[in-house]
């Protein structure tokens, strides 16, 4: 089955109010081209589910299309705090639910394994249990010890970006895998962008680097530089210069309007031109 779709055709399937889990980690392999397509699609009231979130969460918050965020972390790592996330948290304008790295993974895994919860000791004696009302504490039926029951997270959609994919929807991840496999399995519908579509026969040379299995994917789009401004190892690194510009824009309403117009409300090809064109990107970001 040929699952190749345009980003727009993928977005057409996402309704207002959808819950969307997003792969990658902080400044690494975020599906930014799909996220920009989502941002300009007009969809709203989205619930985002991330483990280590970064520019993708920040951008969608900045566009005002998010009503809830489930996260273990949102930040720009070495660059500092995420400006729109910080503003939204401080202004209490959307709902935030703080989880932890493992519990986000466990919540997705519970959904995959068709159990309503998974138990853990993570989070005991921390304030995460006080502010996160999704968790419950429970008593182990064997030993009587106190555990945290992490509820299943059932995302409607997953968005991920990988190095290579075939048109059937198998995906190769060459750098760190982050939680992309969990996202792809847990979501009812998984959309994947890739740096390059390859023939099935070429893809199968990658052995265990074929991390995303087509039984879990519903759409695939070739979007070179589709993680920009985050990085996509071992091909290109994060574009910290662009992220600096982004952060400056996010902290100034006038600049932010310009950034949206020039960088979000444009097709992916135009976006690549706006950030200097592919040749320039290679010289600055290829490793």
């Amino acid at each position, binding site marked *: 089955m040929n699952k190749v779709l345009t980003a727009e055709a993928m977005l057409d399937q996402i309704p207002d109010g959808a819950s969307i889990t997003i792969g990658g980690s902080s400044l690494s392999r975020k599906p930014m081209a799909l996220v920009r397509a989502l941002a300009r699609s007009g969809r709203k009231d989205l619930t985002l589910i991330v483990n280590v979130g970064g520019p993708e969460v920040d951008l969608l918050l900045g566009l005002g299309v998010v009503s809830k965020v489930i996260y273990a972390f949102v930040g720009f790592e070495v660059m500092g705090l995420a400006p729109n996330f910080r503003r939204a948290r*401080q202004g209490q304008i959307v709902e935030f639910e*703080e989880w932890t790295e493992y519990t986000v993974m466990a919540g997705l895994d519970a959904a995959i394994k068709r159990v309503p919860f998974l138990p853990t000791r993570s*989070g005991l004696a921390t304030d995460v249990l006080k502010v996160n009302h999704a968790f419950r504490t429970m008593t182990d039926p064997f030993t009587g010890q106190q555990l945290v029951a992490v509820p299943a997270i059932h995302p409607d959609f997953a968005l991920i970006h990988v190095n290579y994919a075939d048109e059937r929807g198998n995906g190769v991840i060459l750098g760190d*895998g982050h939680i992309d496999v969990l996202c792809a399995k847990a979501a009812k519908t998984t959309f994947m962008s890739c740096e390059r579509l390859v023939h099935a026969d070429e893809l199968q040379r990658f052995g265990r680097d074929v991390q995303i299995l087509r039984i879990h994917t519903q759409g695939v789009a070739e979007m070179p530089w589709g993680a920009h401004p985050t990085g996509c190892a071992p091909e290109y690194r994060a574009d*910290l210069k662009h992220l600096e510009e982004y952060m400056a824009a996010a902290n100034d309403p006038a600049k932010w309007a310009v950034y949206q117009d020039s960088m979000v409300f444009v097709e992916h090809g135009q976006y690549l031109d706006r950030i200097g064109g592919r040749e320039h990107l290679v010289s600055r970001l290829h490793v």
Partner: protein
Amino acid sequence: MEYSLDELMIATMAHQLKGEFLVSSVTAFGALAALVAQKTHAPELAVLATPESGMEVTPLPTLTLGQFLTDVQRGIPLTMEEIFDAIFCDLFRIWINPAQIDQFGNVNISSIGPWEKPKVALVGSRGIPEDTSHLSQIFYYILHHNTRSVVSQVDFRSGAGNGAERDQYLGRSGAPSLLVTDLGVFDFSGPGGSMAVVTLHPGVSPDEVRERTGFDLQVTDIIPHTTPPTAQELEIIRTADPLEVRKLELLAGEEASEKFVTIYERERQALHVAWPARGRH
């Protein structure tokens, strides 16, 4: 041999790492401490190139190239599941850099002010709760020891320190072991598991520590000095971090910006000089 504060701190941090553990490279300080330990007294440490992967590499602190090290050095790729399994099995060590730490070793990276209505929303607890419920050694470092970072009580407990709730639910698993700051080294051997001074860095006075700590820390006048880094340790740090990414964490303002740009522009070249490509891909 002359050394700087970052080098003193990194060497001190290195001394704590021993045994066969995965050691995460989240920050330049953490990566370099792991490397120094691995190249001196703890050859069995399994140092990672990134927070989650690239085992058996020589870390090169960079802004953007952690995962590329895995490729050029043929590090062993791990998964997030491997990392958390190693945490649960107490086979993982990490130097955590919290925004706040309090007198009982609770740490905060979530919010300044109440979580529900933060004065400053920070980043979220990330994997710290997993660490503070499972590891038998928990290491913290703080670069700017002051009354806003070393506090009486954290605004939010991202990680569990000592206290009744820990004793009830966790016992000693994940209890705070050590804190290294720009002033000295501290443990949690005080009353009720509270912070106590172990050493002060050369040139730091007891008064300075008292003044820059947000609670009434007992500091006698006969605290020993932190051991300075050896020539070998300095050599390892400087060779592994030719761009001085480690300095970034201590700088601020214009100086930080300039260094940042320089590092970002040069780090690909530094990578290729240190590790001529021989990746798997």
